[in-house]
């Protein structure tokens, strides 16, 4: 007999503990699976109402027709055929959508590599070189400081720095390193990548750091005892164990960059195509089905990338 029943009995001696009472109470108890559903329910409903249902609408609308001022709810593949216009006829030249996605993927790849590199080492430093928990917390909070201002401000702040008569150029001119201002610093792929890396590295740091702090320190000691070099420990112990963090961080960065058009617009001087930009232009011209079709295409491509990444690591298993 466990103590709780004893205590209960002592507290209220009138209470009869009998097998009858216990049996009567049992059917009222909820089954564990029902409780799990109940717990997941609110999130599921939110997900359904604000993600799945709108998404279904987007897919439906993408197959509608349209004119200058309204949607025509009749089946039409126009949104898609218009988007891929010239893709076969113009071969071997790339069509608009091909060029756009090639550019977007290129930017995405560059940003991903750089944020991964920087993010990994920042997380590594925080997890292994900073010994005290307080300092770890303090320094990670420090990383969030840029997030105290808006995206747009962090982005625009680069412009006076990188411009033709900006700080960097005038500095370089004064030191005599260059005679002519360097033009590619601003409104170029360089400035786009720079701004995106600046904006999104933190999304890489957090999940990687999270994975790294959970690595059992004795594993590293064991590796050291077994005679592994620092590099071997990194490649064979730390990176494999930090993989879930790396993949989650990568998913954050890739999905954001694939859909971004504001940063690419502002930093690229509106001269660089982006998958998101096509959607925006179509929306502004009130061509909703065409915009929806482009959104579906973007979603499919992003989904494909994510699927490939989760093939490398089974996130659910690793968590």
């Amino acid at each position, binding site marked *: 007999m466990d103590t709780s029943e004893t205590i209960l009995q002592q507290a209220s001696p009138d209470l009869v503990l009998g097998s009858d009472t216990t049996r009567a109470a049992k059917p009222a108890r909820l089954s564990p699976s029902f409780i799990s559903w109940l717990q997941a329910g609110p999130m599921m409903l939110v997900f359904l109402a604000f993600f799945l249902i709108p998404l279904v609408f987007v897919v439906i609308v993408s197959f509608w027709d349209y004119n200058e*001022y309204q949607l025509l709810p009749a089946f039409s593949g126009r949104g898609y055929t*218009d988007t891929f216009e010239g893709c076969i006829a113009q071969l071997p030249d790339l069509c608009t959508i091909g060029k756009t996605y090639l550019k977007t993927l290129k930017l995405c790849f560059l940003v991903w590599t750089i944020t991964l590199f920087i993010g990994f080492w920042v997380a590594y430093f925080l997890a292994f070189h900073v010994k005290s928990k307080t300092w770890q917390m303090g320094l990670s909070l420090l990383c969030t400081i840029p997030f105290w201002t808006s995206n747009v401000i962090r982005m625009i702040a680069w412009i006076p720095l990188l411009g033709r008569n900006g700080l960097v150029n005038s500095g370089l001119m004064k030191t005599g390193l260059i005679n002519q201002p360097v033009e590619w610093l601003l*409104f170029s792929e360089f400035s786009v990548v720079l701004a995106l890396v600046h904006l999104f590295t933190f999304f890489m740091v957090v999940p990687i750091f999270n994975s790294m702090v959970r690595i059992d320190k004795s594993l590293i000691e064991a590796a050291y005892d077994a005679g592994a070099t620092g590099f071997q420990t990194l490649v064979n112990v730390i990176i494999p164990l930090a993989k879930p963090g790396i993949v989650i961080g990568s998913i954050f960065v890739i999905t954001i960059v694939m859909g971004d058009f504001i940063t690419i617009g502002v930093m690229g001087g*509106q001269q660089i*195509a982006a998958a998101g930009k096509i959607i925006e232009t179509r929306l502004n011209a009130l061509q909703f089905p065409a915009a929806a079709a482009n959104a579906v295409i973007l979603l499919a491509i992003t989904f494909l990338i994510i699927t490939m990444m989760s093939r490398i690591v089974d996130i659910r298993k690793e968590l």
Partner: protein
Amino acid sequence: MTETTGKTGVSRRTLLKGTAGLAGLAAGSGAITGFPYVKSAETKVLRYLGTAVNEGDDISKQCLKDTGIKIEYITATTDDVTKRVMTQPNSFDVLDTEYFSLKKIVPSGNILALDAKKIKEFDNITPVFTKGETPGGKKIGGQGTAPWKVLYLEGKDSKKFATSATEFVTLIPTVYNADTLGIRPDLIKRPIDSWSELLNPEFKGKASILNIPSIGIMDAAMVVEATGKYKYADKGNMTKEEIDLTMKVMTEAKKAGQFRAFWKDFNESVNLMASGETVIQSMWSPAVTKVRSMGIACTFQPLREGYRSWASGFCVSKGVSGAKLDWAYEFVNWFLSGYAGAYLNRQGYYSAVLSTAKAQMEPYEWAYWMEGKPAEKDIKAPDGSLLEKAGSVRDGGSYEERMGAVACWNAVMDENDYMVRKWNEFIAA
């Protein structure tokens, strides 16, 4: 215990409902009950959807003072204004939009044409809108969506534009201007007199146009025509071949690195010019003024091929009726009565009713802004900041000269869908 609480709660709620209902009835409304109506009966509120052009705080304050109507601004970009009219027609009362968007808005049936007879100053509206000529009798170029082509509807609920004057007005004219290229004379150091200069390799990496397809393509067409490559039948309504040709010229220039950046909003255009990133670009009048007020030389350069013009005006949402419609008329009438017109004129725009605006301006202001005469005194902005020193002359000269030299108007083309696709191709090139 539980029962009692429940009962009290119910009765309290019923009481509240009853009161609200009574209040609604008291306010004279049978159909609508509840607080919102009661509140709006006390203060006259109009939700005003538009771009930032007309939306001065001074205007809304003066309006409240003169008419007791409280204006709640809903500010959006030109594209977003149109989008909102289409998708949320009940989210605004008064709409301030450009004439070229009427080709989309009118067929949607989401706006209500206003009655010309209820507009006091309607007969005094400048002939630019009604006849397509300046008060001095100069014919104005009508390519594109010129306001006089879409000013009237055939009937109250008609979705067709009337070819002659009717009493059903799509948009009551308020403000308009003639746009051209802005340049940095201090960096260019030679006279500029043609749109073709935008593609002159001399300005490689220092030119810009705006990335709003329906306006950008008009500027592009002005450039193409100026280079002598092609003469359009109507720049504002191109055929597919003409769109291809225009975009081809622009794409080649883009690939050669002619453009530093494209701009999308007012501030971007100011920053590009002020920082010296660009020295020649399509621009809007107040943006030039803004650059100049920063102490940087910037000219709104008149060009021999003429100006690209735009115009906007007021209408109301389909959902507006009863007392609210009366306030809307009261507001529009107030807007044309002078204060707002003078305010807009002082920013370098033009007001639709010239006589009332003139009465509200100092003679030297009128002479500078409208008659193209050298300023007798320092010219100040509506907020009191110095715009021009005494002795300076307005770029492009007088109203007659500027509006008389308009070549085309902002437009929505029949091939708009194709044009937008081509524009995306241009950006991706």
